[in-house]
């Protein structure tokens, strides 16, 4: 946060000194240092973004020349049933995954809070899903969800007396199965952030609360939760943004199937662009996603600045 505040609140006298320095030869130096980063960001981030926005207004035809079609791609994509379904799945997956990962992360943090060495080792082990590449996690869960009774999850369910479920092959359960995997991947990440929040809770408040004879639940509700609320808010919104552009998990685990039941925004755009060669439609879909992401990000920043002022 200091980055933005120092840059905008330069005192007037310092601004004059700054103007003087720009005239000096040294003014070129920072730009030399910035050049590689700016160049790479320009060519591989901003040019593609501009190109994506530009192409979304065209019927892209290789070798024939592109044809301006205005908002046709947008109306076509947004009225397409499969795309609407994909948006719905994205929202379900994103919201379910974010909320689930927060709740599980919070429970994990409460469980594993403490300074003991054994707790640190357990934390290290529980954190493994976060550092593992998404594609590897996807392969792992494909095998854990193995549809017969000797699959890992199904054999665990068998112990509880529940029959084997073909999680990924059934359109009714595939999206939920994907959500569970997403929670598994993200919960330990949230755990670390919530643990950092928990560590900052004033211990004397706990003691005072105990003196007043409050229950454990009340202590959590009125002391712990308010103290870590800023951390929770940020985690939730960042998770929502990540949820919007979910791709790898779904692509590796189900490929959007069965029967399109796990098709999300990005897998749909990918199919449109790379297998159906509808570059214009895929670009329009990406631009809509980009707009929503930017909107969410701006709200996060607003949210965060308000939090900082407190």
């Amino acid at each position: 946060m200091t980055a933005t505040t120092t840059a905008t609140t330069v005192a007037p006298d310092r601004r004059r000194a700054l103007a003087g320095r720009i005239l000096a030869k040294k003014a070129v130096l920072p730009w030399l240092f910035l050049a590689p980063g700016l160049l790479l960001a320009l060519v591989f981030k901003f040019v593609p973004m501009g190109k994506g926005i530009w192409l979304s207004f065209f019927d892209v035809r290789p070798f024939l020349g592109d044809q301006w079609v205005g908002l046709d791609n947008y109306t076509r994509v947004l009225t397409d049933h499969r795309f609407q379904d994909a948006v719905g799945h994205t929202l379900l997956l994103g919201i379910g995954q974010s909320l689930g990962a927060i709740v599980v992360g919070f429970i994990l943090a409460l469980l594993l809070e403490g300074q003991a060495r054994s707790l640190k080792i357990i934390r290290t082990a529980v954190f493994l899903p976060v550092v593992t590449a998404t594609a590897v996690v996807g392969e792992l869960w494909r095998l854990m969800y193995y549809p017969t009774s000797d699959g890992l999850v199904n054999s665990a369910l068998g112990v509880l007396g529940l029959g084997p479920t073909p999680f990924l092959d059934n359109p009714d359960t595939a999206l939920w199965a994907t959500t569970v995997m997403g929670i598994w991947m993200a919960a330990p990440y949230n755990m670390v952030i919530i643990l950092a929040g928990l560590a900052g809770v004033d211990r004397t408040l706990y003691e005072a609360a105990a003196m007043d004879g409050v229950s454990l639940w009340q202590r959590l509700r009125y002391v712990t939760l308010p103290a870590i609320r800023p951390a929770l808010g940020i985690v939730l919104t960042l998770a929502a943004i990540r949820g919007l552009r979910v791709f790898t998990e779904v692509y590796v685990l189900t490929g959007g199937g069965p029967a399109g039941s796990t098709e999300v925004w990005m897998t749909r755009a990918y199919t449109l662009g790379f297998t159906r060669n509808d570059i214009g439609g895929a670009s329009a879909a990406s631009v809509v996603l980009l707009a929503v992401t930017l909107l969410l990000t701006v709200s996060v920043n607003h949210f965060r600045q308000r939090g900082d002022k407190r």
Partner: protein
Amino acid sequence: MSAPALDPVRAPSDQVTATPSKRSGRPARTTPARFDTALGWNDRPGVSWALRILLCAIALGIFAAPFLTIVSGALSTHPSGSSLSFLPHDSTLLNFRVAGERGIWDYFTNSLVIAGGGLLLQLAVCVLAAYALARHRFRGQALIMTLFMLTMMLPEEVIAIPLSLVLGHVPVVGIDLKGTVWGVILPLGAWGFSVMLLTEFMKDIPKEIEEAARLDGVGELRMLWQIVLPLCKPALGVAGVLGFIMIWDQYLLPLIAAKDPTDYTVTVALSILRTDPEVGSGVVLAGAVIALVPSLVVYLLLQRSLVTGIAAGATKG
């Protein structure tokens, strides 16, 4: 950002909440007090103690045990591999040999080149940019910072289709990067997160050190290399480990930057193994183990940096 030297979990607490922790002033304790944790866990044998051990075992079973099944499945001779267990049936390295015959080590080499080269480029680019942003004043500074922050909001997923066109024909120079490692490495060069992290850290370096060096006639590059960088080691550790894990996790970018499957990274190549009808899931798991090991090694060696970085990243950017 002076956190990394402290305890990873404790360190960023001051950024999360305004109330300072009262614990730092206390002398070292041998027996934790009742109010050390939100739930008031007790270390003495008893009901709460037993409950905690049970719950910890469940957490380990859910989050860590599946990794044992990967390893045991990869070492099993069981042909279908559908029955995963925590111990291999008959230990064998056959799965790894078959995976090797399917070119897994070539994919692994691709991954290593991309992760190594990509990380070096990313660190170099981000250190240079952060140095300019932290130690210099110039017109348009806030705008440049915003641009780097924007790169974080433009993930490969969202710009995948136009990025694939750009990789096939880079503007102005017109080179085709597809099928080369550069197609994956270059787009990862400017990473807003590292730029922000390093900028924040470099800002905390006292002006006096820099001024003293300037009096000795130290130039800009030597200043960066010999004075600023050694002082930034903790932040470099965070940027390095997070950067490595981020690059190793890439999926869509290696997919669209490849000309044919031989250009894939090991994580993307797992799907080739899976769709190969001649190999069982034991071979896929062998591939998964191979894809898992580098990120695991980096994590175990540098987990302190990683955890600090995540906690700082969540509260800062």
